């Protein structure tokens, strides 16, 4: 972000999310999560820990709310006498929604979080000074802060050998969050470029999508018309860049969380099917 850049591209900067923002996207990495298929097994969360070098903080710090589970399974119980008590707990995997007009981005004083041409919210660990403003302005509360240094405590030898070499281990004082497994995206993109071809749908998926036993999580590039996820979004008539969906068929299950805030999340959830007659 240089001043020259700001002055020269001012008009494009001013474009809102509704007009497509100021980016020309190369990819638009997107997810669709079918809550009806989700069994709350936490495999996605575990896979995320393994893939992204997430520190296991321990019981005490977890209870204090200092855990760093980039993907968490939120459990909600229907209260008695309300909606569907007989269905018990419902699950919702929650991770960074990679918002199209993310609220975390403008508030960072050092521009450590920014928007990539891939449609991701990138977090630059080296640039982060830990003001934690981004987390405060995130309606999903999916940004996690390294309250301690875990480099030595979380991976005692020989566990350090399990660390994923494709990405760093973050030290204390920086913010981190789900990246849609940006290291996998990077590798796949580089490979496609070397082989001089376009990226194929399903060539790679995120760790959570890979681990999900019921295939509830579908990941892909919506700019690719062949992609499974793009078809799902179309099928459920969920549009991007709007704060209110106008569906022809209101029975369609697709929805985005907090889209009324005009943050333009990249994750579509498919509502759980409830059968109250049982």
């Amino acid at each position, binding site marked *: 972000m240089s001043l020259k850049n700001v002055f020269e591209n001012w008009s494009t900067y001013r474009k809102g999310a509704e007009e497509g923002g100021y980016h020309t996207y190369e990819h638009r990495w997107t997810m669709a999560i079918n809550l009806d298929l989700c069994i709350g097994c936490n495999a996605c969360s575990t896979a995320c820990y393994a893939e992204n070098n997430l520190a296991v903080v321990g019981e005490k710090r977890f209870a204090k709310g200092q855990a760093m589970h980039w993907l968490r399974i939120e459990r909600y119980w229907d209260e008695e006498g309300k909606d569907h008590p007989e269905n018990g707990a419902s699950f919702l995997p929650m991770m960074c929604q990679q918002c199209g007009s993310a609220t975390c981005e403008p508030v960072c*004083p050092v521009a450590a979080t920014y928007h990539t041409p891939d449609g991701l919210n990138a977090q630059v660990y080296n640039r982060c000074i830990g003001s934690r403003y981004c987390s405060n302005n995130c309606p999903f509360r999916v940004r996690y802060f390294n309250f301690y240094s875990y480099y030595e405590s979380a991976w005692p030898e020989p566990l350090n050998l399990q660390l994923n070499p494709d990405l760093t281990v973050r030290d204390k004082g920086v913010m981190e969050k789900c990246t849609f497994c940006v290291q996998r995206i990077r590798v796949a993109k580089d490979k496609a470029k070397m082989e001089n071809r376009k990226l194929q749908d399903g060539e790679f998926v995120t760790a959570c999508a890979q681990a999900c036993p019921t295939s509830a999580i579908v990941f892909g590039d919506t700019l690719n018309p062949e992609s499974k996820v793009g078809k799902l979004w179309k099928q459920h008539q969920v549009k991007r860049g709007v704060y209110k969906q106008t569906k022809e068929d209101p029975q369609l299950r697709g929805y985005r969380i907090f889209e009324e805030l005009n943050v333009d999340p990249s994750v579509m959830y498919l509502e759980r099917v409830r059968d109250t007659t049982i």
Partner: protein
Amino acid sequence: MVIDKDINEQIKWAQINADVLRSMENPRKAYWITFFICIAMVACAVVAEIYQYQTGLGVTNLNNPHMWGMYISTFVFWIGMSHSGTLLSAILHIIHADWRKPIYRFAEAMTTFSLLTAGFFPLIHLGRVWNFYWVVPYVSSRGIWPNFRSPLSWDAFAISTYLSASMLFLFIGMIPDLAICRDNAKGFKKKLYGALSLGWVGSDRQWRHFRKTYLLMACFLIPLAVSVHSIVSSDFAMSIMPGWHVTSFPPYFVAGALYSGCAAIITLFIMLRYFFRFEEYMTLAIMEKTCKLTFAIAMVWTYLNLIEFAATWYGHDPYAKEVLISKATGPYAWIFWTMIFCGSVVPFALAIQSWRRHMPTMFVVSLLLNLSMYFERWMIVAPTLSMSMEPHQFYIMYASVVQWAIVFGSFGWFGLLFLVFVKVFPSVSMYEVKEMVFHRRRLINEDAETALHRRTGDTQPGLTQPA
């Protein structure tokens, strides 16, 4: 109705010098006791900060939804504190309220020192404090700039501007007094004051330039004071969080700032009056005027509070409404109602004359007002974080000892700076009190005034011939 004067206008100019200079020599024992208590408090904070720096911010008990805590509310509190100095020294100067003269100096010092205290908190709460300068747009060969869209980088500009301007203002206003100190000091002190008084001899030309500079700085400082707290309020108002995203925050913050600052002036007024035996200068009449001013601001604050509640209540934001309701009924309810009681009901004590004139009562009242203002800042920061939009992440944070120690120590740090200042520099403006005495005396009897302060050979203003 008790009618008394702002200042005894029969007081001799030499007496003013002697009284104020005496304050720099032998304060009461209470001064030294307070001084060492302050040092102990700072020591607590230093130990806590070293521990936090070494271990990580987790020791503060901050957690995922509750990323900001007492550090930020204390930061806002100290920034707020700094506003009253400007109110007294600049705004009241411009509107010619001359009763401010005996008390503005320490108020202005309070501004500077509370800014110096406030400035620590954004740094203390940073995850990687050693990189704090990245917020400032310094020349970097990599061409990396801070994010100018972020209210936090505006904060850095606003606070550093306000701090340097108010320091300069404090210093400029002190030059004639420093010259008096220089003339009455010996040895090392004479050198120090000599250097600081910048060769002041009190010539007409110097006074003319001095007046102009002082007025210019006063005019410059007022918009800064308003902007700095408006920008601090943008830290909250610019976010999209329920309870923070409030249009009326900038005026609300400025009113709250003036409120807590005026309450602090009453506290320090009473303390200085006692420590340095300033009963002649910090009179009950001035105390009453300060109390009335505080009362007026308290009512403005109450009004803006009601506006905020009403706007949320009648607005269409269900999240904001939820947060408002949980403020009044949730886990922070006792803080909320204490804030309302101490901030909107207790100030009515300032409306009763006999209470206004009773120093111990006013001391307690002023502390209660500031307690309310501290709670106000906590109620701004905490409920929104603990109960925002994502119900899975509702979490109440209880600050750890480390957080408490640093916040506690900040009061010691402020006290320490302030106590050193009032001992080393004249805490009552000598030349302005003389000016005030001069004007008051003139009102009563012009001839007597002339007889008192003019040597027979002196030229009188307006007369070409010696009188």
